[in-house]
């Protein structure tokens, strides 16, 4: 069981939020592979079995379609399941129930579908093509799923609380590279943070960097660097990619007149495409430069470090792009 030391890691923030929602609401339960005695592959639910018992901490067979569909049925009759996918990559095995059962059900029928799907995603752990995927684009086109991608421990906590309380299916994507690399700056609040509200995490004048998840800390670091060269970067953390807070993005771009979108997912039809298309639709006359997208190359994520580093966006490339757009 995580305890809030005042410096919770991103991983602990997820655990603390889940723990507090399970404390608060007896209808919340966690289900997935090895979430019980083992505490989950990444140990988010360590101690949960002892605290909440096997009724509410449900180890499953390796059956992603089965347990995702089960969650849907349980949610329909009033429970609030939290489904853990061991790696986000395996969510492909539940793609069908997610898009055809969970996502569409409320719109078809009016029945609530309060399922939260948690999945550790992303690269930089040298885990290769089928353990490093960014999965948000598989789902962002599908009507009916909210997609939450926190970039800080604070947001990880508050957004998970909101996801669990939401009556729609939410896909809550945890960047596993951040798990033990980010710490909260102070004691963690477990108050809900509303879904669909972006946050300007750094004010700036010359260019707006729109990003989410690991892009936030990465972007902030690069922004500090560029500051030394007199380039002032505004960083917008969109936090939930669906629904998208277009207003905050557009307001920032109106101010800076330049925009770069950053994510770890492959560029082609990555969520940056939606953001870039929207910005130019909404703020065309304010743009001094085209919106530039930074994403991974359109290849799978390689395992070997020199290859993975060549595929996934690196700070130097981000800095270079921001510099170019700001100065063009």
């Amino acid at each position, binding site marked *: 069981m995580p305890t809030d030391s005042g410096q919770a890691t991103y991983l602990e923030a997820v655990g603390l939020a889940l723990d507090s929602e399970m404390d608060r609401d007896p209808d919340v339960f966690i289900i997935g592979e090895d979430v019980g005695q083992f505490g989950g592959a990444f140990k988010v639910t360590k101690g949960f079995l002892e605290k909440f018992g096997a009724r509410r901490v449900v180890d499953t067979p390796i059956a992603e379609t089965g347990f995702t569909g089960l969650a849907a*049925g349980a949610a329909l*009759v*009033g429970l609030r399941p939290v489904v853990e996918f061991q790696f986000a990559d395996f969510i492909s095995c539940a793609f069908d129930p997610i898009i*055809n059962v969970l996502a569409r059900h409320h719109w078809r029928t009016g029945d609530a579908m*309060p399922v939260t799907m948690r999945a550790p995603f992303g690269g930089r752990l040298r885990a290769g093509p089928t353990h490093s995927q960014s999965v948000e684009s598989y789902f962002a086109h599908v009507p009916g799923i909210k997609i939450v991608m926190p970039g800080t421990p604070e947001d990880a906590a508050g957004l998970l609380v909101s996801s669990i309380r939401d*009556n729609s299916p939410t896909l809550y994507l945890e960047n596993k590279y951040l798990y033990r690399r980010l710490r909260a700056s102070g004691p963690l609040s477990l108050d809900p943070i509303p879904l669909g509200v972006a946050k300007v995490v750094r004010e700036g004048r010359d260019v707006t960097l729109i990003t989410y998840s690991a892009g936030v800390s990465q972007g902030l670091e690069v922004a500090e660097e560029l500051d030394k060269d007199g380039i002032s970067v505004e960083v917008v953390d969109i936090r939930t990619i669906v629904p998208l807070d277009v207003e905050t993005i557009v307001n920032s771009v109106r101010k800076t007149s330049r925009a770069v979108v950053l994510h770890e997912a492959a560029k082609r039809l990555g969520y940056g495409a939606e953001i870039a298309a929207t910005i130019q639709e909404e703020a065309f006359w304010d743009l001094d430069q085209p919106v530039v997208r930074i994403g991974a190359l359109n290849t799978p994520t390689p395992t070997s470090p020199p290859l993975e580093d060549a595929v996934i966006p690196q700070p130097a490339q981000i800095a270079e792009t921001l510099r170019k757009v700001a100065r063009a």
Partner: protein
Amino acid sequence: MATRTRRKPDAPAGTAIADRDPVLLRRIHEVMVLTRAVEDRMVAMYKGGDLLGSLYTGHWHEAISVGAASTLRTDDYMAPIHRDLGAHLWRGMEPWQVMASFMGKATSPTGGRDGTLHYGRLDLGIYNLPSHIPANFPVATGMAFASKYRGQDRVCLAFCGDGSTSRADFHESLTMASVLKLPNVFVIENNQFAYSTPLRMQSNSETFAIKAVAYGIPGVTVDGTDALAVHDAVAEGVARARAGEGPSIVEGVTMRMHGHAEHDPADYVPKDMYDEWSKKDPVELFENVLIDAGVLDGDAAKKVREDARQLAIAARRKALADPMPEPSGIEDGVYAD
């Protein structure tokens, strides 16, 4: 691992009937007759151009859908599939609502957002399935899970076709339900075909019930044209489930007497299969059993049929008169409040 084959209730029909609740028997008969009447009416409506798309019927499935649904308490859950109008009607779905669904009317259970066979009403404990078969199976395990989670003894009954047993959803939900000992009964409606494909090209197992062995649960095959045989087998599964002893499979063997849907002439079905099976009309068979046992007399049976016919006619009238939906607000309800 009790996997066995049971064709008819062991006791001679007469004796068995006498020991049963005549009200329940007559209600089963009524709903079976109504199911047939509504579907016959809808076939006419399909031919007459009243419906939007194709029509999926459950002729010869009445004994399975009503026989099975009639084992449930009103607070139990049900996850039917496209041949189970009888099960819907048993739970209180209105015939006109079903027609409205096939017509895309505002009064359909989904207000015209979904249509054809995609109706269901959670207030009646009925899951409304998508097209993907058998997506209702994992959902059914979830409803059963919730019952167990809350310490309730509600059961969830799920239906699928023979062909549907090949899919991920079947296997993964049976695995989940058996490992977690969930209060489910899974009814397999073996109607000899999956769309155009005959049984032997869907599954290589001796029966569908025998697949229960793979999950360490009971499986039984019954005559799916015999409402009482289905009722008894499902009742046993429901009792087991309610007692916390876990899930089971009941396979009802019948025949799909129409095309996959009404657009399908089904000329791939050997004619002699129809000839043979036409002798086994489940509605007629059950009516005769009740008449023979004196639970129903000929006149009463006739009245049941006439009432059903009138109800179906009235349902059509209402559904036809009902309005089409307004597009305003179509973007609402993507998310739940």
